[in-house]
């Protein structure tokens, strides 16, 4: 019931009106009160409908105790290797904001700090060394803004460093939650692409039979189903475990599922899926761009591997 009405709303609203519509219909309150279920639903539907809104900013603001302010710009990192620590003299920023971000003087910049933890810096928009540039990129529909540069750490307010460890944990946990949300959106995209693939191979006939009867075609879609299932379970576990590592795992699994779906579904849709008109390309573009937010699945994977090798231990996440 909730899903049906949400699906209707997300798939019909104009992008610029979506945030307001979600607020009016009480969805933003649900994000706070019914966190796992409402976040899962909302972001999966975003993915399915190829919708874009600033729902992630709302969630991030809420987790950080800010309350939603449309003027506040959050900058999410897209490269985990640009790490900061307590002693960094300069801070490297390589991130994006979800909107045009021209109404605020102060940016809330999220910075990767290693091992799935994050710090938060308040950075004046006009600070030396920072460049803001509208992103056309692989998915121009999104209308994001790139925020890049090297800035002097003395000139910014590092909330977590000054306030001690609890605040750092708060930022890290907030980002775990935001990673979960992105993971759900990636799963929504993957499911939408799988549905497109299933429709196509069922309807398209060659050699006198539906191409979905050929094993090689079938098995590509079976593999998509397998990775989506794994991603969904990883997302459930991330909420259950409620720690940064399981959220990293969820985001990596979901990114892998969405990227595999993009590749396999494009292949089985043949030449038709490669046209502008077909529209599959919009999902593919979205997957590749969304995957970068708060660390790509590839970057997370390599980091997990390094962590395992460094600690010589293999964590067992999720039990009975």
């Amino acid at each position, binding site marked *: 019931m909730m899903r049906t009405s949400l699906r209707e709303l997300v798939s019909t609203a104009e992008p610029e009106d979506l945030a307001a519509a979600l607020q009016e219909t009480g969805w933003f309150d649900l994000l706070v009160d019914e966190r796992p279920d409402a976040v899962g639903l909302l972001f999966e539907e975003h993915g399915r409908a190829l919708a874009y809104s600033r729902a992630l900013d709302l969630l991030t603001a809420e987790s950080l105790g800010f309350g939603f302010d449309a003027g506040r710009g959050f900058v999410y990192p897209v490269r985990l290797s640009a790490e900061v620590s307590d002693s960094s003299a300069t801070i490297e920023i390589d991130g994006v904001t979800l909107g045009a971000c021209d109404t605020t003087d102060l940016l809330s910049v999220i910075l990767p700090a290693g091992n799935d933890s994050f710090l938060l810096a308040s950075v004046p928009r006009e600070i030396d060394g920072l460049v803001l540039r509208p992103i056309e990129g692989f998915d121009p529909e999104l209308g994001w803004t790139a925020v890049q540069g090297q800035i002097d750490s003395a000139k910014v307010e590092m909330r977590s460093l000054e306030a001690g460890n609890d605040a750092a944990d708060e930022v890290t946990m907030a980002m775990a939650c935001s990673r979960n949300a992105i993971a759900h959106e990636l799963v929504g995209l993957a499911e939408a692409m799988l549905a497109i693939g299933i429709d196509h191979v069922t309807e398209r006939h060659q050699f006198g039979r539906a191409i979905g*009867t050929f094993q090689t075609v079938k098995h590509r879609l079976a593999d998509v*189903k397998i990775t989506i299932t794994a991603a969904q379970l990883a997302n459930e*576990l991330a909420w259950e475990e409620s720690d940064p590592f399981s959220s990293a795992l969820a985001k990596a*699994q979901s990114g892998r599922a969405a990227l595999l779906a993009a590749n396999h579904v494009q292949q089985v849709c043949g030449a038709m899926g490669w046209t502008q008109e077909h529209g599959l390309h919009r999902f593919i573009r979205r997957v590749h761009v969304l995957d970068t937010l708060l660390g790509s699945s590839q970057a997370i994977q390599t980091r*997990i*591997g390094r962590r395992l090798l460094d600690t010589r231990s293999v964590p067992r996440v999720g039990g*009975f």
Partner: protein
Amino acid sequence: MDESRAKTITPDALRQEVRDWLSSQAQSLARFRGPDKAATEEVVARELELQRMLSEAGFTRLGWPLEAGGLGGSMELRGVVFDELHSAGYRVPETLDTVEICGPALTQFAPHLASEHLLRAIAGEEVWCQGFSEPAAGSDLGALETRAVECEGGYRLRGQKVWASFGQVAQYGVVLARTGEAKSGYRGLSMFFVDLSLPGVTVRPITAANGRNEFAEIFLDDAEIPKECLIGALGDGWTIAMFLLQFERGMYAWTRQSKLHARLEKAMAATRGDGADAAADAVGDAYLTLYALRAKSRETVKRLAAGETPGPEISIDKVLLSMADQAVFEVARRLTAPSFQLGNEVADRAWRAEWFYARAASIFGGAVEIQRDIISERLLGLPKGRAVGN
């Protein structure tokens, strides 16, 4: 551990109890750690002793029905036990896998056999094997030709079974045979619990590519078995086989992923690794694949414990199992090179044997190609493509 505690104990409390037990028994359990270079038959014989200890402590009787010698409670509790054993570096006896796979079919469809045999199998007093595959019926299991004909007091079995893990050391086999017409397909099958010491039964080990006797073939030459050995009703063989497979995908896969975590850890310990990016990437990839298996088999065990029927979805578990198995031992091969290829140590031999075994993970129990057919046809609703059988 007793019946009343089995009903109330939490997984966390059990975890602690297993840990305490393992440390209190550390000395007598030491021989069950690390690779064992002996032949399969010797290893099995040795590990039956561990089975006895685990059963006596009550851990492996958790979650089995009281009537069959179990302690009751949820089968999830055994999942905790297996996870802890592997985590602490012990081998879980592989003959217990057959109990996990076949036990539920006995308790569900043949309580009289379960009450006589289950506890003995749990405690390592008898070993079971599975007799499903045949030389001409592997992935196409519905084509099997072993016949069971009614005779005075029971059934007479004739045919050949193959790829029965631990068949050469087993006393009993759970055997699928045709009781209907030759062309009756899936409908004309029945399941039997066969005493392998009966006249007319011959078992021969098969040496696998890794040099170990991983399985056996069973020749049934007019072997007569009593009628009590029928599991379930006549003609219900396929239903029971499908029921049984859920547990193979469930608890067997869960135990396997526990072991794979331990082996991945061991492989990393064996490296003179410098954490180079390529190695890190490979380890991260294997870990994510393994995590997918852990999450899925955990869900399946939970559903089975709740009495649900996961049905065709278990094919996902099976594919994830083979992916994880191969990902972990591939990365182990890379991390332990070049002693993997060139070393003579016990550990090197163990890595090679396990790597080779992992190559079969996508073949045994229904090749992954069949699983992907099931996923695409029964879960995604894609049109059937086979020329026969539809």
